[in-house]
């Protein structure tokens, strides 16, 4: 039987000193802002015990957005939104600037990752029924984020200003133009005039790096607020019901939709 010696007095005093040094600035911050408590509340809030990896798709999407924001800010330091120099500036980033190829590659491929994760997250929420009461509003906010993210893709695609970018945008804008009644006006607004040119490039650039990311960030804030306020939902096969223990049903050998569940349904065809 190993006997743990009590910590020596000196050692205990040293520990207290370290704790004090860590705590003093935190306490200062907490007293004046309540931020420490807020972060603790966010990090240590209660979640269902049977959460699984599918629940991480939302955080993964957020991470993808943050990667896009970070790499995008740095790319904006090198990019020239003018028809004569846009392509050359991107060539410069890709071939000349140290690690430019990496940051541009992250932004380029990360764009697809972001959209794919958005859809996977949406699919998870749909299949888990996590959009139901009281989380309908959070679904709506997410549905607003989706087209904004796709507009990010549409506006960002033009910025390299190569042949693919140019003609894809021509087709995209003209597709909008074929919409009945307001289509031609929308196309005119997107082009910034009768023809695609410098005006189109600068307005796509402004939308891509200011308007749309700002709107997405705001909606993500609202989305997260609702997640924290409403809590995370259990998976559909969870024995945990909201706020109460569910009665354990008789084992009947039934097969649930997702896995043999403790729900007590009868086997099919009976």
């Amino acid at each position, binding site marked *: 039987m190993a006997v743990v010696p009590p910590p020596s007095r000196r050692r205990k005093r040293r520990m207290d000193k370290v704790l004090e040094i860590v705590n003093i600035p935190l306490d200062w911050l907490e007293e004046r802002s309540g931020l420490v408590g807020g972060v603790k509340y966010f990090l240590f809030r209660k979640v269902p015990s049977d959460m699984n990896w599918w629940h991480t798709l939302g955080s993964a999407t957020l991470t993808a957005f943050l990667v896009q924001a970070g790499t995008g800010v740095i790319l904006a330091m090198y990019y020239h939104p003018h*028809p*004569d120099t846009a392509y050359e500036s991107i060539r410069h980033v890709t071939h000349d600037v140290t690690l430019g190829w990496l940051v541009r590659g992250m932004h380029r491929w990360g764009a697809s990752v972001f959209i794919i994760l958005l859809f996977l997250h949406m699919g998870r929420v749909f299949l888990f029924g996590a959009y139901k009461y009281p989380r309908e509003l959070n679904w709506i906010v997410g549905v607003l984020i989706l087209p904004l993210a796709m507009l990010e893709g549409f506006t960002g695609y033009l910025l390299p200003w190569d042949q693919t970018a140019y*003609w894809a945008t*021509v*087709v995209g*804008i*003209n*597709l909008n*133009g*074929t919409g*009945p*009644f*307001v*289509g*031609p*006006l929308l*196309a*005119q*607004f997107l*082009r*910034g*005039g*009768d*023809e*695609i*040119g*410098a*005006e189109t490039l600068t307005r796509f650039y402004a939308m891509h790096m200011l308007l749309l990311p700002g709107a997405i960030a705001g909606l993500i804030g609202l989305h997260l607020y609702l997640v924290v306020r409403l809590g995370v939902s259990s998976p559909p096969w969870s024995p945990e019901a909201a706020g109460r223990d569910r009665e354990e049903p008789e084992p009947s050998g039934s097969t649930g939709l997702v896995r043999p569940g403790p729900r007590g349904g009868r086997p099919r065809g009976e």
Partner: protein
Amino acid sequence: MPVVIAGVVIAAIFAFLWARDVMTPDRPAALAEPEPVPTVSSGEEPLVERFPRNKFLELTTLGLGGVITGIVTVPILGFAVLPAFTGKELEGVDLGPLDKYPEGEWREATFLLDPAAGEVSRRTAFVRNNGEKNGRPSITIISNRCVHLGCPAQSGGPRQDDERETIKTEQAELTLTPIQPANFSCPCHGGAYDTEGNRIAGPPVRALDRYKYGIVNGNLTLLQPYSVGKVDGEGSNAMIKAYGLQGPGEHVDGLEAFLYPIQAQDLE
């Protein structure tokens, strides 16, 4: 100017609303009046708030906030949207001496629509000299913008790139390439047109757009583009009903044309 007027109108509306809000007697306060007032034995006036100051401040804040928001937002929105709809009229584009276009032959001309905008305004048109009609030269100028979704349509047939001519005009340089098209077709989604620009296959909804033209000092000059539903006849005998230029994919004739009642170009 219209932005200023709109701003003034909105400011006036908000000012009126604000003034009306302030002048309107406060109903909740009126309701509260008949409530029993605690009698004060000292004989002084009972302490009742006769004028609800917080209500006044609330309305003032809302009203002023509305006015300021209107004053700030209207010009910003106008600036964001209106310039797209107030484009400048394009000058004619000089396409070089008329004798560079031999009778009965096609030339693929590339030119700068707006030299100030630079290379981004480079456009291509297929030009054919139809010879004289009633003593005046007849020219067919077809835009290469596919009327499906705006990709560049190509000439289908032989082309003599080694005989390409570069002509310097006062505005900018211009290239002419001899072509012998059997048709025009678009690589994006397979739209195909005959040599009058009529659709023969694929998704386009009308014939290729054309340009008006003039002869200035013996030089062919490109004028306004226009849209075409269908061309009857060919060459100098072609019968064309011209519509104002419309975007690709928009119908100019038939029932579907009712889907596009407003044209951005019509607004200018």
